[in-house]
């Protein structure tokens, strides 16, 4: 079957952005083509990755597709994740963590207002490490707080046992800077 390159690029983009298996049905919907075309497109994407000597592979199983790293690269991925994501905390990570610990649960914009820098990647990392998690909330904006694992790791039963907890979270500077987020 003739499948145009545009479709292949679209499939690649969706699989990349997803980072997990995506069903054929969803792919058909998003690409606005027939099911057979999606299957053919995936086949061609798969063979393109194979022939260019890429480190990535397209896996197809049970009418789902995923873009993943080749099995022989697992060690490299492990090494990378250990160093980059699970190594020592960087200064900005530690700072964000201390704010979430004392002032959490709080939203990302609130954290950013206090820190004065963008915290998207920092929060992503703290979540991977299991130090921070989002709280179930009815509002649209998720709130971040430290995990029970982290509280226990610090030797505490409750995060409110942090030194000078009451005094520090009632600091006037915090209220005033947060007042600016809402305005």
């Amino acid at each position: 079957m003739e499948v145009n390159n545009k479709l292949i690029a679209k499939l690649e983009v969706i699989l990349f952005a997803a980072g997990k298996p995506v069903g054929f049905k969803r792919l058909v919907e998003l690409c606005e083509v027939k099911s057979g075309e999606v299957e053919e497109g995936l086949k061609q994407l798969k063979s393109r990755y194979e022939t260019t000597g890429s480190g990535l592979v397209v896996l197809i199983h049970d009418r789902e597709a995923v873009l993943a790293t080749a099995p022989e690269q697992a060690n490299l991925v492990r090494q990378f994740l250990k160093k980059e994501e699970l190594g020592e905390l960087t200064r900005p990570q530690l700072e964000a963590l201390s704010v979430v610990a004392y002032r959490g649960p709080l939203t990302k914009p609130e954290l950013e207002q206090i820190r004065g820098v963008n915290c998207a990647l920092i929060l992503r990392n703290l979540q991977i490490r299991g130090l921070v998690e989002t709280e179930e909330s009815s509002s649209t904006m998720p709130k971040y707080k430290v995990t029970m694992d982290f509280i226990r790791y610090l030797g505490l039963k409750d995060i409110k046992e942090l030194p000078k907890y009451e005094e520090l979270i009632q600091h006037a500077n915090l209220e005033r800077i947060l007042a600016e987020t809402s305005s």
Partner: protein
Amino acid sequence: MYNITLEKWQGPMDLLLQLIEQEELDISEVSLAQVCDQYLKYLAQVEELNPAEVADWLVVAAKLLLIKSRLLLPGLALGGEEEAKELQEQLKLFKAYLEAGQKIDKLWRQGQIEYIREKSIILEELKRFSPPPSGLDISILEQTFRKILAILEPIIKLPQITLQKAISLKEKIEHLRNFIKDHAGLTWQHLKTKARDKTEMIVSFLALLELVKQKEVSVEQNGLFEEISISRSDSIHQNIRTLDH
């Protein structure tokens, strides 16, 4: 007269550039002198609108006045060649970046964002609680949080600081006004040497012009390039020349 409100101007450079462009002039010393009065008119409104930025606007006002006076009254020997050159350069550069900013805005609005994956990929085996290898305790958290609270201090105070700067400039003008009024018979030369730096000299001159305009003092110059003497209007009423136009 242009019917424009000041909220539109993002700063003195922005206004200055618009004034020059509306007159269809190139950026030059002459055109800066030409738009000086219009600029001052707007400045009067800016003070009411956004006190936090008055200082920035005043500095440019002082430079414009200096440039204008220099062209009108070369005998004053005010100096100011540097200010004129600097302001022109600053304005040209500002214009270039302003135009570039508009192009950046166009790209931004196209929304052709190159997305990265939102969630990280983590191997199943690494999905576990991972504190930093060298450890972390509550005292580190406390210290870090205290530092962050301290850093917030100047940010919260920011609007007040700019305001203070503005007030001190205005106060300086007020102070000089009183000084000039109290010392009838002063010469410009005297005032000039009293100034600690160029900015203060410009501000002195600004104050002097203001007083002349309000007819509180008169200035007298016997000939081109000669000493300018300043006196209270109630003591001398002869040979008044306003420097205002």
